[in-house]
């Protein structure tokens, strides 16, 4: 109970100092009076009696203070005293305090911002119960275990039937889908997904209203039922409690609402949060074992490990390969825990950024340490006096560290404010790959939450910061004893301090160079990336998505046979529209599909080595509209209709790979195998390669089919306009409404925007690195000029003597510059060495730039040298303004 008593007494002493003092005083006074009375009884005269009683006490006031020290003067009181003293010192020196706090706020703010992004993206829990038991199940290849292929429905059926490791398995449509809601209310396009009946059980979620899908609703014909997300239920149906059982129009057809999900249910996988859930309703195409279009989710049985599940599923996969060699030869099964899935690259990017932010914070620490050193030198008289009065070294270190921590906390608080502000800014520029980490969606309206994890992180960083920048000065200045002060005090400088300050300049320059190099590499990458020719002309092209539901996406024919014709007639006739077409997968940002095929006249490769290529469906005039050069042959025309002979166009890469020494025009290919009953397709055109997968990806072999012969459920309209395309959005929408009244256009972007967005995943880290390097450069400049200014002010007398002895201004400037620039250059060398070691962590973010690009390194070093020179030169020039007489009289 001892600590308990002490703590209570000390707290009382701390907060009720007056009452404690009064208590002691009263007690002592009572004592004196009792003693006086006793003395009177012994016959002393009143004055003498009182004097004798007091004598035993010495100084009453001092005794009271002493009593207080014992009763209340513990660490808490000392801390309080140090805090009050420290804040008085900080307020007395507002310039120093402000610079230090701003410096720390920038450093801590940068770290808090990045951490809050990490917290919101990577540390955000997956919104399903016991998510550690959820796995993704892929088809994979025996000879390439890293291969992840989405599943075909028949394989999933067999997996589900034969496994004993999963509680439940489910699939959902990999691509997701846009659905057009019409009928009551405005025509609206919402994102949705087809799911199997077990989907909700796997995820472990129950609807807030109604029910989820039944097994029989997976079959076409019974599938006209939908489940709504909470968001959609609120926004479109005004949270109607009687929604279950109501009929709504989805893609122009009547569907019955059977359930509404709870608000915490957010399903997202590489795309937007899905608002409308529909039964999988297997199409004929889906029932083909070699048609891969589903992602498979499963929930491990309680107590089953990942390895056990892997072994079991692998065995099932191998037996399916034997059973169905046509579709499954060489195939096996791969499992991923959804907690780990899809975060690897993002984690690397964000941790790299956190490390760079850490460098910025270190520079800030160095700066503040420098400031403290300079100030400590001015406070040496005060510190010496304290020591002379009996303050121990530990006591002085403690007091100085308390001041440092006080500064750090002020910086930390401001840093959190910076993080809240910059976090909301960052969120707006968050690229798609970070915004949509599978299963962890981020809602741009929430902002980046500054929660307890972020606060704990900042608190830790702040404490560490305070100790890092405060420790060296505290150790140095507490060491000085009175004699030393008296001997050196008049000169006011310590050689140890000066050396440390030079060392800090070295460190600062080295850190700044590393950050600068990182930013330089990112800028260089971005410049290289943006200078890549995309293979098409992106200016004055606007794109819109429209969904045209399609039964058979494998070979066609289209459900909307007149679509291409209507497009030309209604959209093509808008004044100012140069050309119009549509494509299944927009270059750069539109994903892709692939198909296996065989070539007429070539030997049968067998199903295992079947060639494949990218697969696109386009409308007439596509190449002209996109500005893609036609190398030979022709575009598709309206005459390439459903009943006309099958035709395709191919890209250069496909021509080179499959017909290296011949002219591909007129050659024929067939989808599937030689035995397939699909028609032969004749090559009628060869087009220039396009950076289909992104500016940083190589073009791959791709072939194109006309929409009239092979439709696709989601087409992207591309419209080339004579002037700025923004003005055409409404006319195009109106034109669309005339021939596809139930279809809403969505995802309206210009092709320039598509290009701009495509480099977002690189632009984001680049922007941050550039911002960090600017902060680093500024801090380094401020730090260096601070050190030089201080050393100039310390050497005023020396400079004065030099000038009195006839040194020129140039000489004085050289004197000051030589020493400081030497430190900066040493820092540069150290920074270059560190860059060699550290920039390789950026490799994944770079494009056609080596991590040790000599141009970038040289340029970074050059900028830094320039900044360091200016930071040294300005204070050096001030040194020449010293009046020798004044300088000599100074002491």
């Amino acid at each position, binding site marked *: *109970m*001892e600590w*308990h*008593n*002490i703590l209570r*007494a000390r707290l009382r002493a701390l907060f009720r100092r007056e009452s404690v003092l009064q*208590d*002691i005083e*009263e*007690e*002592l006074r*009572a*004592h004196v*009076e*009792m*003693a006086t*009375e006793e003395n009177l009884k012994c016959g002393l005269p009143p004055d003498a009696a009182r004097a004798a009683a007091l004598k*035993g*006490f*010495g100084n009453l006031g001092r*005794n009271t203070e*002493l*009593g207080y020290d*014992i*009763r209340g003067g513990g660490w808490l009181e000392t801390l309080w005293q140090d805090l009050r003293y420290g804040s008085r010192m900080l307020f007395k020196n507002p310039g120093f305090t402000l610079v230090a706090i701003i410096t720390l706020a920038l450093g801590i703010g940068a770290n808090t911002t990045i951490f809050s992004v990490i917290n919101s993206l990577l540390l955000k829990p997956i919104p399903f119960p016991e998510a550690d038991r959820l796995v993704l199940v892929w088809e994979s290849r025996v000879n390439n275990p890293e291969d992840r292929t989405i599943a075909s429905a028949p394989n999933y059926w067999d997996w589900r039937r034969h496994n004993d490791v999963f509680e439940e398995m489910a699939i959902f449509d990999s691509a997701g889908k846009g659905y057009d809601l019409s009928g009551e209310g405005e025509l609206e396009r919402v994102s949705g997904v087809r799911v199997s009946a077990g989907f909700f059980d796997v995820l472990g979620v129950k609807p807030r209203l109604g029910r989820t899908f039944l097994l029989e609703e997976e079959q076409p014909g019974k599938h006209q039922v939908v489940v709504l997300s909470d968001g959609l239920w609120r926004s479109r149906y005004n949270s109607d409690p009687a929604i279950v059982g109501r009929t709504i129009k989805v893609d122009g057809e009547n569907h019955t609402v059977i359930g509404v999900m709870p608000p915490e249910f957010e399903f997202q996988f590489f795309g937007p949060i899905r608002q409308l859930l529909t039964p999988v309703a297997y199409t004929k195409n889906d029932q083909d074992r070699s048609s891969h279009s589903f992602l498979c989710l499963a929930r491990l049985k309680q107590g089953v490990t990942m390895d056990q599940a892997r072994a079991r599923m692998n065995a099932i996969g191998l037996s399916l390969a034997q059973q169905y060699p046509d579709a499954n030869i060489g195939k096996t099964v791969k499992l991923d825990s959804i907690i780990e899935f899809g975060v690897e690259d993002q984690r690397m990017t964000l941790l790299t950024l956190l490390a760079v932010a850490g460098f910025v914070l270190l520079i800030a620490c160095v700066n503040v340490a420098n400031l403290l050193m300079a100030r400590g030198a001015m406070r040496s008289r005060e510190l010496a006096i304290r020591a002379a009065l009996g303050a121990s070294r530990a006591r002085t270190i403690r007091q100085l560290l308390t001041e440092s921590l006080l500064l750090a906390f002020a910086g930390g608080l401001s840093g959190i404010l910076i993080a809240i502000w910059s976090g909301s800014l960052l969120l707006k520029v968050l690229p798609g790959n970070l915004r949509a980490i599978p299963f962890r969606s981020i809602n741009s309206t929430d902002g980046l939450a500054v929660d307890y994890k972020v606060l704990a992180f900042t608190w830790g960083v702040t404490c560490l910061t305070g100790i890092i920048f405060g420790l060296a000065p505290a150790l140095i200045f507490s060491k000085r004893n009175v004699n030393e002060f008296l001997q050196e005090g008049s000169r006011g400088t310590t050689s140890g301090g000066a050396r440390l300050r030079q060392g800090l300049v070295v460190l600062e320059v080295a850190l700044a160079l590393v950050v600068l190099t990182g930013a330089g590499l990112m800028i260089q990458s971005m410049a290289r990336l943006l200078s890549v020719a995309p293979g098409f002309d992106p200016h004055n092209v606007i794109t819109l998505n429209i969904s045209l539901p399609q039964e058979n996406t494998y070979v066609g024919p289209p459900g909307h046979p007149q679509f291409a014709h209507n497009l030309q007639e209604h959209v093509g006739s808008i004044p100012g529209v140069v050309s119009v077409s549509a494509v299944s997968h927009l270059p750069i940002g539109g994903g892709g599909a692939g198909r296996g095929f065989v070539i007429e006249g070539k030997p049968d490769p067998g199903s295992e080595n079947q060639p494949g290529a990218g697969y696109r469906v386009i409308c007439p005039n596509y190449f002209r509209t996109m500005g893609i050069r036609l190398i030979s042959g022709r575009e598709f025309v309206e005459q390439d209709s459903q009943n006309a002979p099958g035709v395709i166009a191919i890209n250069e890469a496909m021509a080179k790979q499959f017909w290296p020494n011949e002219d591909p025009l007129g050659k024929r290919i067939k989808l599937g195998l030689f035995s397939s009953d699909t028609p032969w397709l004749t090559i009628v055109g060869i087009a220039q390669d396009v950076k289909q997968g992104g500016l940083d990806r190589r073009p791959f072999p791709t072939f194109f089919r006309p929409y009239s012969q092979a439709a696709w459920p989601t087409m992207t309209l591309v419209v080339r306009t004579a002037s700025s395309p923004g003005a055409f959005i409404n006319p195009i929408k109106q034109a669309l409404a005339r021939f596809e009244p139930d279809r809403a256009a969505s995802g309206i972007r210009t092709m320039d925007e598509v290009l701009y967005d495509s480099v977002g995943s690189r632009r984001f880290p680049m922007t941050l690195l550039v911002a960090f390097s600017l902060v680093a450069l500024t801090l380094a400049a401020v730090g260096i000029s601070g050190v030089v200014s201080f050393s100039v002010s310390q050497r005023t007398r020396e400079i004065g003597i030099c000038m009195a002895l006839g040194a020129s201004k140039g000489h004085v400037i050289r004197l000051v510059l030589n020493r400081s620039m030497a430190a900066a250059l040493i820092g540069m060398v150290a920074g270059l060495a560190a860059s060699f070691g550290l920039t390789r962590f950026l490799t994944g973010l770079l494009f056609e730039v080596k991590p040790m690009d000599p141009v970038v390194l040289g340029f970074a070093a050059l900028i830094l040298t320039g900044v360091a020179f200016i930071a040294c030169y300005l204070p050096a020039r001030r040194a020449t303004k010293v009046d020798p007489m004044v300088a000599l009289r100074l002491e």
Partner: protein
Amino acid sequence: MTRPKADLLQGTLDMLILKALSLGPLHGYGIIQRLRQLSDELLEVEQGSLYPAVYRIEQRGWISSKWGVTETGRRAKFYTLTKAGSKQLTAEEESWDRLALAIAKVRKAV
């Protein structure tokens, strides 16, 4: 910080205060009086030493204090031995006895 007078060993004053209080609650002046009586006027504890020691002991929880009224009607702070205090007293007396015995043995041996 004042220490017990040189003729009182460090820590001895604490034990004496506890001993004085083991006979009943006392105020500071009373403790001095009682120690003087118990020692047949040999021991004169100074006020300047007493109060720091009393506060220290109170902090350790060996005694507790309460304002009260003396028999002459004066307000004074009374100290009472706590349970922990009487345990401490026993321990200190034992160790004192051991020390005294040891010293006595050493002296006789010469």
